[in-house]
């Protein structure tokens, strides 16, 4: 694979996707500390919010240590070069959250929908574009449909005004060929001035291989997470990815040495859950299940005396999508009932 001379924008997820393994308990001080260090290391774009995006604070997903607004108001003013992004899932957050984020100085809004439901993002993408934000459409669980179907959905978001479209492997299920087909088709068929991005999960340890495939197929933005801190087995570990990219002659603008220090000295020590491809994360990737379900399934398994891998496989069989965390306890109760009946 020859990527020599290509340029890519790296986007760090540790302070948003990384909120999942931290049970949304990162403090504003920790957010500022990590974001400042990432900025210092030259990471150009950093996502900050509740793990489930703006407005994610809930019984269903978990109440965070601070509000989205508190996190954003703490982090944004401290950035020298890096820009801050926020995630928004229509159905969870609203345009009110988007306006608040904009008011806090958020540069990039990423409007995320399940890969088949792009039309719920219309009002949010239109507003983001109208406020002249870097407005990204984020198609989650993109392994579940064909490249052609994804393109149709991506075109809807492009039509609303998104200037960048993401293929999001929320389950960490994809293999490089899946990524190549999806990113490649979007790159070919979307407007030339619309960027294409890829967001991976490391559940099958394919984060780096998939991200390389994405760049080769024309992606200009890649998500990763310093120390891999993200849902499931985490996101593409950013410092490792930077090392690989630099070996291949890809320009990132990131200082690899500084970034590995951020991972080693700041992020690993603050992790409360060891992010790795444990059997549950591996199950997510193998069965194609939304990565954020991980800790919720572990908790339900403990509470009801079940195997978390069984719960996750059942959720995959039911074709649950992102945001359906409430199904986890429901499924566990069903399984417990079925077990008692036997």
């Amino acid at each position, binding site marked *: 694979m020859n990527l020599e001379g290509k340029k890519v924008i790296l986007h760090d997820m540790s302070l948003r996707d990384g909120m999942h393994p931290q049970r949304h308990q990162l403090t504003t001080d920790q957010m500022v500390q990590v974001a400042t260090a990432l900025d210092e290391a030259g990471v150009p774009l950093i996502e900050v919010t509740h793990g489930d995006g703006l407005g994610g604070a*809930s*019984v*269903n997903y978990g109440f965070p240590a601070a509000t989205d607004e508190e996190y954003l108001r703490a982090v944004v003013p401290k950035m020298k070069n890096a820009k801050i992004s926020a995630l928004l899932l*229509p*159905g*969870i957050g*609203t*345009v*009110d959250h988007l306006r608040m984020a904009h008011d806090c100085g958020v540069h990039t809004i990423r409007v995320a929908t*399940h890969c*088949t*439901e792009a*039309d*719920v993002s*219309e*009002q949010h993408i239109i507003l983001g574009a109208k406020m002249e934000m870097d407005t990204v459409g984020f198609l989650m669980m993109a392994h579940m449909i064909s490249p052609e179907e994804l393109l149709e959905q991506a075109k809807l978001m492009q039509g609303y005004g998104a200037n960048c479209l993401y293929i999001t492997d929320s389950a960490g299920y994809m293999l490089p060929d899946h990524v190549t087909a999806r990113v490649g088709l979007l790159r070919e068929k979307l407007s030339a001035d619309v960027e294409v991005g890829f967001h991976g999960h490391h559940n099958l340890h394919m984060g780096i291989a998939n991200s390389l495939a994405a760049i080769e197929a024309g992606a200009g933005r890649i998500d990763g997470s310093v120390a891999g801190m993200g849902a499931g087995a985490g996101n593409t570990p950013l410092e490792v990815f930077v090392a690989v990219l630099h070996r291949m002659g890809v320009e990132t603008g990131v200082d690899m040495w500084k970034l590995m220090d951020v991972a080693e000295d700041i992020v690993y020590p603050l992790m409360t859950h060891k992010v790795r491809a444990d059997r549950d994360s591996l199950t997510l990737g193998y069965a194609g299940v939304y990565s954020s379900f991980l800790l919720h399934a572990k908790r339900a398994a403990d509470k009801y005396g079940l195997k978390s891998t069984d719960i996750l496989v059942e959720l995959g069989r*039911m*074709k*649950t*999508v992102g*945001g*359906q965390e*409430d*199904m986890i*306890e*429901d499924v566990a*109760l*069903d399984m417990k009932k079925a077990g008692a009946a036997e």
Partner: protein
Amino acid sequence: MTTKVKAAIIGSGNIGTDLLYKALRSEIVEPVWMVGIDPESEGLRRAEELGLKTTFEGVKGLEPHIQADRVQIAWDATSAYVHRSNNDLVSKFGVRMVDLTPAAIGPFCVPPVNLEEMVGRGEQNVNMVTCGGQATIPMVAAVSRVQPVDYGEIIATVSSRSAGPGTRKNIDEFTRTTAKGVEVVGGAKRGKAIIIINPAEPPLIMRDTIHCLTADAPKQQEIIESAQRMVAEVQKYVPGYTLKNGPVFDGNRVSFFMEVEGLGDFLPKYAGNLDIMTAAGLRTAELIAEEIRRAEAA
């Protein structure tokens, strides 16, 4: 024999058509007009076949006939954007409005919780909150009538096929209106609503999760009994409303896991979200009709 109270259905889409099928069975309300905006509308054609008068010129097309045809009740099954002007046009003639859009210009009405109170007040316009609200607010109320609820949260999951273009275009309206209904009608101090659209095939039946955080330790037995009574109340007009799991008690959290299967009148059974809306809309109109009759008899 007394005559039925005449009604108009504004909106010839899925909701309007399902409502029509249900309303044709009513013993007290008689749908006589179906209002659409598209001459090619399937819904208008179907309504005509079922003996209704139809217009494709919107409420303006209905206006000249309101008095002649003695229309006293209207359902609005269009969208929040046009509801206000629809309501302005019909209210001039004293028509009572049951609003199935999330416009919420009138007070919220969730039949098993506050229908009698709403109708008793003679409100010209009542709003049916949202489908998710109809499916979940009764359970919040079932807890709050036992003890104070600090926070009520609902998660409504609907199949992709049952989420219409109106809902999709303005999904924020759903979350905002439902959250407000959880507070105002459900009785929670603070409300939150989440909606998830799932494209699985075959389509999943509407699912709803309700979490309440009670101010003090939940009175478990009373909540269980209150919830059972409430489910039975809803089942009177939506037989497929079932408590699948729960209540789960976990500290001050009380959680219910519901499933809502529709009657399958016009919409398929999995679209319980739409069915509960039309069933609640009809039930509300029937109570209004009874009130109109009483007033006329007096």
